[in-house]
Structures are given as structure tokens and as C-alpha cells.
């Protein structure tokens, strides 16, 4: 039986349950998904990517995936981070503006161009740039690209982040944060769906 980690908490997995036992078979993955979360949100050094920027990007990225317990968790995390509460309304408004369906985007010109799919090229609203600041505005635009149209990414997107004041190390951690959250929200969703189906099976068996 394991102590609950962040994935258990978000997916509703209880110690001693069937899913807890299955997760225990991949204990290194379980422990290191947790270490990834802690390294991103409670880092040794936040000099290149501040804690409030991390919380704001996380609330935005998860919010773009739709409403869920995970979205509420990261909104609360932003509200609880120093200087975060002041950003909450702006982030919520930008989530509403950025919502769409992915993945879409373009392939390198050639046979795969037939699969190119157009979609929203999200830009932060001019009204909210003063609240968010240049660094965070650039981060939200790039995070939206990573969430919905990662195959559109180009070298010029790195230049846009560097121009907005991001360091190369900051860009690496920022990319890891968005990519990690893309993993975490899917594991949580998958395990929650599986858990619900186990509940139904157990109930059916109990009723038989």
C-alpha cells in the first residue's frame, strides 16, 4: 500500500485499491512522475522561471484541456502562489480565448502536406498584456502552440521567447513543464476512466 501521490490525488486512487496495486508494479515510474512534478513546481533554483510563472503557465495549459478536478487544482495552486491571485482572472480569460481542439498544424512541405490542418493561432489579447507582462504573454502563446499544434513549432518560436526575456535554460524548463503536464493530465484522465470501469465491474459482481 502506497502513500498517495499527486496522480493518486487527482485520479481519485485510494491506498489499497486495485489501481494502487497496479501502479505499484511500476514503482520507479510512479516515484519519478512525482519527482518530476516536485522538480517543476518546487525547484532547487527558480531563477530562470519563477514560481508564479510556473503556476500561471500550468493553470493555463490544464485549463485549455477543459474543466476537471485537475484544472481546479492548478487554478488553486496559482491562487495560492505569491503574486498569483492577481493573475487568476487574466489566465481564466485567456483560457476562454484559447480553447480549441487539437492536434493540428502543418508538416514540412511534401507528401504529408495533405494532412495539414488549419486551426487557431492564439495570441494573448492586447488588453491583458500589461497584466501578464512580456515574458508571460510570450510563454502563454508558446504553451498554446505546444498543447494544440506542436508540429508547427519552429526555430523562430525559440527566438520569440529569447526576445521576450527567456533564457535558454528557462526555455528548457518551461518546455518540460508544458510537456510534463500534457503527460500528467492524460495519466490522470486514463486512470480515472479505468477506475470508474472497475467500480462498475465490482458493483455488478456484488449485485450478482
Amino acid at each position, binding site marked *: 500500500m502506497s502513500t498517495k501521490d499527486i496522480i493518486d490525488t487527482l485520479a481519485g486512487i485510494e491506498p489499497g485499491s486495485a*489501481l494502487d496495486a*497496479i501502479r505499484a*508494479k*511500476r*514503482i*520507479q*515510474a510512479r*516515484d*519519478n*512522475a512525482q*519527482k*518530476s512534478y516536485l*522538480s*517543476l513546481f518546487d*525547484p*532547487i533554483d527558480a531563477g530562470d522561471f519563477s514560481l508564479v510563472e510556473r503556476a500561471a503557465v500550468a493553470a493555463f495549459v490544464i485549463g*485549455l*484541456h*477543459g474543466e476537471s478536478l485537475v484544472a481546479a487544482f492548478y487554478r488553486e495552486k496559482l491562487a495560492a502562489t505569491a503574486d498569483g491571485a492577481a493573475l487568476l482572472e487574466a489566465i481564466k480569460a485567456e483560457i476562454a480565448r484559447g480553447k480549441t*481542439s*487539437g*492536434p493540428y498544424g502543418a*508538416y*514540412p*512541405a*511534401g*507528401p*504529408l502536406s495533405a494532412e495539414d490542418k488549419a486551426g487557431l493561432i492564439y495570441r494573448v489579447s492586447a488588453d491583458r498584456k500589461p497584466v501578464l507582462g512580456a515574458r508571460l504573454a510570450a510563454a502563454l502563446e508558446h504553451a498554446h*502552440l*505546444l*498543447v*494544440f499544434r*506542436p*508540429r508547427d*513549432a519552429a*526555430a523562430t518560436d*525559440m527566438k520569440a521567447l*529569447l526576445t521576450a526575456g527567456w533564457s*535558454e535554460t528557462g*526555455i*528548457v*524548463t518551461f*518546455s*518540460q513543464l508544458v*510537456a*510534463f503536464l*500534457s*503527460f*500528467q*493530465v*492524460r*495519466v490522470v*484522465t*486514463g*486512470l480515472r*476512466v*479505468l477506475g*470508474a*470501469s*472497475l467500480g462498475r465491474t465490482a458493483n455488478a459482481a456484488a449485485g450478482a
Partner: protein
Amino acid sequence: MSAANTVNPPVVFTQDELGWVSWIDPLPEAELTERHFAGLVDRSRAKSEYFRLLVRDPEVLEARTKTDKDIFYNVADGLPRAERELAAAATSRYNGCIYCASVHARFASTYSKRRDDVQRLLDEGVGVDLGERWNAVVKASVALAATPIAFGPDNIEELRRAGLDDAEIVDVINGASFFNWANRLMLSLGEPSK
């Protein structure tokens, strides 16, 4: 970005070995410290441009690498390696990561001995018919990769009908989800080159 004019990007999905060129500067090998080597996990990864870039944040790289290794390489029980690699390849095909798809399509071919079927996934895309069991794995991976996430009870039912038990279904969920992490790093920090 100095290598930009020497990049020869592939324009199709392939099982060939590809290179990968970073758009921002990896750390020079000579500057790596013990903290960085701990992040690389395998010291030999110091030779890779991709890992020397990610090692700019060693703690996150170390945790990411150990998550990856257990999801894919721990085959003491659970889903056969071939089908974990199939989930990775299908996710990469759907998200559009030509580099990731090349690596994991090769692994899927090696472990399944179904190279032609894997190639059809790359050529025709995620709607290809690969038989009940592989179709269920591909479809579940695609549903997980969509944003908003489209994975639901029907995917669980299909995987069960195809013979997967709950632990194997968790391996599909982990493998497919992990490639939503990997694809976004490889697609956004650099590009593949033939």
C-alpha cells in the same frame, strides 16, 4: 541555430534512423558537472545533443528519464514491449512527431516482427486496420492524445475485448501519455535531419 543550414528534414514518416538538431544551445560536454551527469542517468547520453540540451534542468531530466525507462523497459509483467512501443509510435504519428515516430516504430517492428504493419501505420496514419488488438491500442492512444482528451469507457471496453487486463491497460495509458510529453520536447526544441 548555427546548424540550421545543414539540416535536411525528412518529409515523410519513416523507420530510418534520423538525427536531431537543437534550435538552442545544448551545454558543452566539457562543462558538465556531477549534477549534470546525475540528470543524464546514463553517462553515455552526454554524447547526445538532445540530452545535453535537456540537462540544462538536471533534476527534471533525471525524473523524466527514470519515468520513461520504467514505463517502457520494465517488462517483468504487463503489456508486451512491442505494444508499449506501438502506443508510443501511434501517439507520435497522431501528434506529428516524425523523429519520435521513427525511433518507436523501429522498436515496435523489432519487438513485434510486424515491420510491414508498423510501416502501414506510418504511411496511412492512425486510421489503418492492424487487427483487433493493435487497433484497440492505437485508438486508445489517439483518444488520449487529443485535446480535449477523448479517452473514455469505450476505449477501456475495446482494450478488454482485445484481451488486455487492467495492468496492461495501465501500461497503454502510461506509454501513450508519456509520448505526449516526449513529442512536445522533440518537436519544439529542435528538428529531425536525415
